[in-house]
């Protein structure tokens, strides 16, 4: 058993972190947010690097990587809080890969993989604003373990997070039906949870850096336990988060019997932890944390918007309980012999 990223997966993470650190600075995020437009330069770069097609099989123009690698990319985009439609494309492509017929895959995946068409994923029974749906040309609407794919535009919605273009599905019954596939929903939950993990991790890292240099009473404020313990607790909560997200990514990828439960746990935990940790980071920065220029609010706002998206904490805990009841056992072995 090896519960950590492989060398190849770590290399993807390092590459994504490096690219986004240079090309998705908070200055860029802020100007995208203020103009209420995606960072088109960064989106062009992500397209040229093939990121929208990371999880799309090669025969449809993608790179054919798995959910763990997708989660790594999604986490890094959260870490940078980058303002591009990538999340929606990854979600739409991932759900189509598992729920679309091969004819539908042929029709829709190549253009999603290049980013030529922008995608988004919504839930039928949900009026939560859908990230990236505001300008999406293709929307996957999931319902139960089935769903539909539609080319009908969504109704744009202006939200507290102007760094992504949100929208609401106008007619959930539009478009053509997809096959039944629980994996489609599970995969999207993992990707969103990974993105939320990245948002929270960035907020914690910023807080560690700031409180280490910000002085009051003649010493760095991090030397006060009221401050350092808050950050230590955030780290503990994110340790749990990271374990849940990457276990779920692996479990869904290999079709482990715990896959759906694990995806539900990850989304439930991150729906709350991501908002809590980004909110806590605002506090740890003191007054400066409440300012527009401190940039923490971009992380906090997106974490807040993604919390209820595809089902919030309570919904996923309720789903999980049903699954635990069905399994009637809390055995959690990972045996694929």
């Amino acid at each position: 058993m090896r519960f950590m990223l492989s060398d190849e997966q770590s290399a993807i993470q390092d590459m994504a972190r490096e690219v986004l650190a240079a090309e998705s600075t908070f200055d860029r995020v802020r100007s995208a947010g203020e103009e209420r437009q995606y960072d088109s330069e960064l989106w062009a770069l992500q397209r040229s690097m093939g990121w929208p097609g990371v999880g799309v099989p090669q025969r449809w123009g993608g790179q054919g990587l798995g959910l763990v690698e997708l989660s790594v990319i999604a986490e890094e985009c959260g870490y940078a809080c980058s303002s591009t439609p990538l999340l929606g494309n990854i979600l739409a492509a991932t759900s189509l890969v598992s729920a679309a017929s091969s004819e539908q895959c042929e029709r829709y995946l190549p253009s999603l993989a290049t980013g030529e068409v922008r995608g988004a994923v919504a839930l039928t029974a949900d009026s939560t604003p859908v990230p990236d749906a505001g300008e999406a040309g293709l929307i996957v609407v999931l319902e139960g373990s089935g769903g539909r794919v539609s080319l009908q535009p969504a109704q744009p919605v202006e939200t507290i997070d102007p760094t992504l273009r949100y929208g609401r599905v106008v007619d959930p019954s539009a478009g053509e039906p997809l096959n039944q596939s629980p994996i489609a929903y599970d995969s999207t939950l993992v990707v969103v949870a990974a993105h939320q993990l990245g948002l929270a991790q960035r907020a914690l890292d910023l807080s560690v850096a700031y409180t280490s240099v910000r002085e009051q009473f003649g010493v760095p404020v991090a030397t006060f336990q009221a401050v350092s313990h808050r950050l230590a607790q955030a780290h503990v909560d994110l340790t749990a988060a990271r374990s849940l997200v990457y276990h779920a990514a692996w479990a869904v990828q290999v079709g482990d019997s715990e896959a759906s439960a694990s995806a539900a746990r990850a989304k439930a935990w991150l729906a709350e932890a991501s908002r809590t940790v980004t909110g806590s980071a605002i506090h740890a920065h003191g007054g400066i944390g409440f300012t527009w220029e401190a940039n923490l609010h971009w992380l906090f706002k997106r974490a807040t918007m993604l919390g209820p998206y595809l089902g919030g904490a309570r919904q996923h805990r309720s789903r999980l309980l049903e699954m635990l009841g069905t399994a009637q056992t809390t055995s959690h072995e990972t045996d694929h012999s």
Partner: protein
Amino acid sequence: MDLTLSADELAFRDDFRAWIADHHPGSPPSNVEERYYWRLEWLRELNRGGFAAMHWPSEYGGRGATAMLNAVFFTELARAGAPIPANHIATFMAGPTIMQWGTQEQKERYLAPMLRADNVWCQGFSEPGAGSDLAAVATFAAREGDEFVVNGQKVWTSEAQYAHFCLLVTRTDRSVAQHKGLTYFILDMSSPGITRRPLRQLTGESEFNELFFDNVRIPASSVIGEVGNGWRVAMTTLMHERSMIGAGYGIRLRNYLTVVESHLRAHGLLDDPIVADRFTDLEIRTRALELSALRQISEAQARGSVGSEGSILKLMWSDTYSRLAEFAIETVGPDALEDASGWAWEYLRSRASTIEGGTSDILRNIVADRVLGLPRAR
């Protein structure tokens, strides 16, 4: 990323699973002392099967198991509803400490009897004036020829009522910096001048003891790792203590959670959406602890050393355990608070979880300092 068991791990799991099926110790006695001896007998039984100390090198009777294989061992114990064997202070703390710092003679004399449960060990670290601040140890060992004469007091000594030997940290030099004046001994608990007094804890039981030393003589040959080097030896012991936490504590929590879940289901209590929501949150926390333990084992193996991650697991454990115990008594109803109720016992016992083995406050200091790299207050 591959969470499947390797061929070796799988082969061991199947062997051990079959072995437990034939050697299961049954259900625990209710009396604290009987339960201890029952768990000690379980250690002997495991030793006969070659499972007493998976992580010890084979030359000392272990299997040289990786931390991951050790986790498989604990998972199988939990799956079978078998107890964690007694004498863990010997197998997880004294043994590895003596292997690292002990003389050849000490290794030959002490290690093998630990696994046969012929020697029970306790740990004499904490004192009334040295709790979280271990370097403040005041129990003094004065050199007299080939012996040291010990006077002072220890407290919170688990299992001292059963112990044959004690890992004893003393001050031998008051003239140097606090942590430089410490010396670590193996103390024979049958030595004259030792008084053991059980501490009655708030559950009414006595798991812990006070130890009083009145001119207790220890031969100089019982020093572990040189006079004045006690702080470093003690850190070895504590590192090994926390290395067992991930696997062991995840399992304790899972077992308790399963008991709570059975009760809730049997009484239809999960039909209440608030109860259901709280229970499921606790299930997620428990699974997160189990998974984090596995992840940290993988990372420690890749790095080749144990880090400060044990502190994170212990924080997760004590927090979730306390929440679960509170949830249980709130949910089970008035019967839960009757004196002989197992629910009440867990509830009361859980109050120790954020204190024992490093308080949550000290552990957050460790996470802030060594994991996050924040500037230190001191």
